[in-house]
């Protein structure tokens, strides 16, 4: 093939972005027409997403492609570049948003606050913004599209803007997003090293002193960390995710957090060149703390979307841990292991995009069917909503990191990376890094606890409210979206070697080594990243053998014995008067975790006394970051503004005096 298909990929991506913008504007034309927006525009958008994924995967293995768009300021056009890293994240965007958009077509109805057409515009601006962030090749284009993304998602979060709480969540989100954006802007300022040229190509060419490089890394960690939800900048996440409509939560949690990961990888591995080893340690510590915090708080949540939001914090933490490990290895030029850790991290990005979207969409269906977000009023929905229930099971297994799902593969790769640190030259690191593996394992095991709580309380047991018996299952388009994401989770879990071959060009370009290129990735069936003697895993064999044993057992038991079943009342140790209220509530299920990790929580408990006629048990859990950091900052800000407010006197002559003093001071300074 000639040069033509090489050009196609980046052009194709640009065309998809334009198509999204067009769909958004079309939504504006059909402002109040739910049918057109839902049945036509969103499915078309899903097709565009698929095309995007296709173009990105096509462009991934090839050489980087560049383009210059004529929009932007005079003499400051948008530079675009599609290399392996951006192609991978674009593919992630395409694959996840295809499912989410189809689902959204069936999900959005009249009366969500914002008219459906306007929602459609915001949604597509958001998609286009994310795609352009990944394509941007200069700081200007990056910041503009980053802001488009942030603003569009702000409007999406505040779709139900008539509710005060949601407006508050949206404001918090906007605030943190802009604090982050400032840090990113400063980071780019450091990266261009005084040359005044803000293209990424120039930044790549600069070699910064260790001090400035570390400054840039710190700013990037702060800025992108604010978007990704890294401790302690995570506070917006558990507020914004429950506030947004479910497809938007899915998109934000599944994809938008990954744009931040993309930015972090771009800056620390690509623009800054080789990372310093202690950046890796910082990332490891921060990532592990974030992951641990996220999962411990997820265990205590009673709102299903908040629970998932905290679980997203946990997953971002794990991704950052992987990046940190890759940085440590890359700094010591242990390229094969750096490639392993980086691949694990990127793999987890993809997995999290799919399973978290799936789970958020599932909660959306539950929310529409029952009008309930609180776990304490749900239960038994697997019977009434089998589609949602069984697809959510796939997501739950992935989120719990259990084989043969996709979540397990990335955790497996990450742990492999931790286990082969014997060659690190720094003795402290050689001994401490495997201890981090213990932390990662603990987080993974807690995630399983959280997911059993999530699934068991929503979908299993008996309905805790009467009305749940009338819950309706997902509609056609919604089912299609759920099925797409489920298929993605399953396939990514079963064919890890194919996925790693896709990731390979990225690790090759960033740390100089691919996993498959070293020749021992294993064949399509067997994943063996280092060598088959050291470690191997074959999810397909795993699944097939398990399924074979299940089928054989069923057949043999029926053949030799019988298959009779009798229905009766539950046994429950012969306890006669059982009600659905006697099941574990979400609080009850999380209680052991609350007790074990008590020092981490800020809890307010109301315990009923034995003589209460109507006993009530209430526990409120507050994020410790609020009182430890945010409220103090708020208090300090208020104090400063009060001090500054004294300047305001209300008399014109005093204001003139200020101007006069300033003028004189400036004149004096210029003279000196």
């Amino acid at each position: 093939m000639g040069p033509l298909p090489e050009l196609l990929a980046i052009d194709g991506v640009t065309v998809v972005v334009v198509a999204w913008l067009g769909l958004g504007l079309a939504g504006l034309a059909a402002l109040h027409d739910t049918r057109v927006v839902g049945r036509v525009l969103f499915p078309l958008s899903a097709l565009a997403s698929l095309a995007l994924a296709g173009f990105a995967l096509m462009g991934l293995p090839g050489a980087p492609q560049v383009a210059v768009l004529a929009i932007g300021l005079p003499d400051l056009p948008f530079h675009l570049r599609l290399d392996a890293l951006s192609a991978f994240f674009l593919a992630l965007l395409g694959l996840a948003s295809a499912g989410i958009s189809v689902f959204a077509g069936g999900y959005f109805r009249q009366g969500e606050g914002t008219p459906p057409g306007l929602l459609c515009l915001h949604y597509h601006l958001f998609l286009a913004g994310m795609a352009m962030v990944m394509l941007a090749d200069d700081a200007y284009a990056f910041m503009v599209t980053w802001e488009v993304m942030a603003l569009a998602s702000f409007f999406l979060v505040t779709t139900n803007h008539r509710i005060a709480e949601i407006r508050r969540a949206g404001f918090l989100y906007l605030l943190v997003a802009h604090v982050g954006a400032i840090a990113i802007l400063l980071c780019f300022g450091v990266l261009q090293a005084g040359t005044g040229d803000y293209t990424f190509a120039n930044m790549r060419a600069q070699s910064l002193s260790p001090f400035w490089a570390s400054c840039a890394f710190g700013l990037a960690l702060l800025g992108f960390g604010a978007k990704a939800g890294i401790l302690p900048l995570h506070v917006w996440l558990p507020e914004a995710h429950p506030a947004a409509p479910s497809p938007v939560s899915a998109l934000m949690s599944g994809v938008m957090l990954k744009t931040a990961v993309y930015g972090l990888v771009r800056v620390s591995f690509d623009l800054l060149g080789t990372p310093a080893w202690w950046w890796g340690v910082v990332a490891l510590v921060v990532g592990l703390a974030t992951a641990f915090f996220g999962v411990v708080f997820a265990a205590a949540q009673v709102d299903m979307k908040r629970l998932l939001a905290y679980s997203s914090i946990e997953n971002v933490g794990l991704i950052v841990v992987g990046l940190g490990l890759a940085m440590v290895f890359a700094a010591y030029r242990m390229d094969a292991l750096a490639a392993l850790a980086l691949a694990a991290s990127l793999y987890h990005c993809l997995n999290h995009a799919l399973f978290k979207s799936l789970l958020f969409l599932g909660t959306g269906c539950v929310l529409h069917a029952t009008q309930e977000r609180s776990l304490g009023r749900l239960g038994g929905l697997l019977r009434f909503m089998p589609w949602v229930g069984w697809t959510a099971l796939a997501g739950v297994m992935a989120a719990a990191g259990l084989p043969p799902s996709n979540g397990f593969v990335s955790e497996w790769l990450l742990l492999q990376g931790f286990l082969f640190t014997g060659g690190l030259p720094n003795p402290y690191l050689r001994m401490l890094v495997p201890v981090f593996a213990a932390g990662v394992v603990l987080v993974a095991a807690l995630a399983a606890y959280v997911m059993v709580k999530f699934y068991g309380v929503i979908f299993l047991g008996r309905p805790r409210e009467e009305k749940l018996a009338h819950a309706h299952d997902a509609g056609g388009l919604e089912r299609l979206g759920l099925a797409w994401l489920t298929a993605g989770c399953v396939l990514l879990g079963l064919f890890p070697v194919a996925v790693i071959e896709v990731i390979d060009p990225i690790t090759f370009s960033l740390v100089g080594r691919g996993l498959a290129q070293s020749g021992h990735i294993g064949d399509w069936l067997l994943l063996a990243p280092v060598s088959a003697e050291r470690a191997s895993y074959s999810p397909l064999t795993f699944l097939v053998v398990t399924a074979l044993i299940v089928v054989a057992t069923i057949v043999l038991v029926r053949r030799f014995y019988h298959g009779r079943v009798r229905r009766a009342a539950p046994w429950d140790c012969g306890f006669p008067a059982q009600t659905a209220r006697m099941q574990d509530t979400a609080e009850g299920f999380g209680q052991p975790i609350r007790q074990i990790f008590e020092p981490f929580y800020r809890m307010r408990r109301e315990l009923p006394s034995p003589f209460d006629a109507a006993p009530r048990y209430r526990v409120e859990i507050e994020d410790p970051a609020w009182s430890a950091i945010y409220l103090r900052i708020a208090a300090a800000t208020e104090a400063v503004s009060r001090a500054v407010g004294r300047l305001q006197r209300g008399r014109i002559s005093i204001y003139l005096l200020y101007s006069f003093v300033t003028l004189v001071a400036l004149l004096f300074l210029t003279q000196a």
Partner: protein
Amino acid sequence: MNLEGALGQLLALAVALLGAPLLSGWVSQCRAWLQNRRAPPLAMPFRTLHKLFWKESVVAHGASPMFRIAPYVVFACMALACMIVPMLSTNLPLAPAADAIALVGLFGVARLFISLAAMDIGTAFGSLGARREMLVGFLAEPAFLMVLFTASLISSSTSLATTVSALAHREFAILPSLAFAGLAFTMVSLAENARVPVDNPATHLELTMIHEALILEYSGRHLALMEWAASLKLFAYSCAGLAIFFPWGIAEARDHAALLWALPALVAKLAVGGFVLALIETILAKMRVFRVPEFLAAAFLLGVLALLVHLLLGA
């Protein structure tokens, strides 16, 4: 996969399926002797299984398919675990499909399904059991992984077969890291297999039980499968422990003479292991449920220390 490998694999499965109830029977026999009771016959678990398989299965109203599929999944997971752990020979064609981490994942899958099934009926005891099972699991799982990681670091492989043959081949040496790991492993397997001091397999006192609460609603063939799976789990744990800490007698690849000796060696090691388990169960008392996290946290810490001691002393 060659024919010999496939036969070896099937042999391992057969040994596990038949040996697991016998091991459970042996442990309860030892327990009875130690407690001055008359012991049930060794094949008692088989009779119980046979009886349960003949009985009809009573399923609660409103049970979802999750409830009925779970016993089969749990049973399959445990059977697969027995096929991965090298007990007679390290020449297992299935072994590359799942290494030590995947083995822990496999137990995790079984735990997920058994807990979800317990929550499915919506009884108070079911969800109590599920909660406690996950409580045990979230600490036992990392502790078990730390044990396996220590063995993996010593043999620089997470593949169980490679680890076991590497451990069997090194010259005799006292490794403090393995001693710690062994202690941690003992604690974890007591907890994971619902044994005293964490849980009592013979209890029917509702408020103290963990494993029994999980399978409270099961009857007939479903209960039989769950019980069989539980004994398979004990068998898999015992074999894994014996293979890592006492790896002698396990046949290497294509060593037919050794394979003949492997079975008696395994039986002898399991008999001793079962007696030790019965002894532990007899001399210890069951602890309060809220002491369990401390017990398991100690196991986790021991595992981490084992890892650390290995890294520090290189032994």
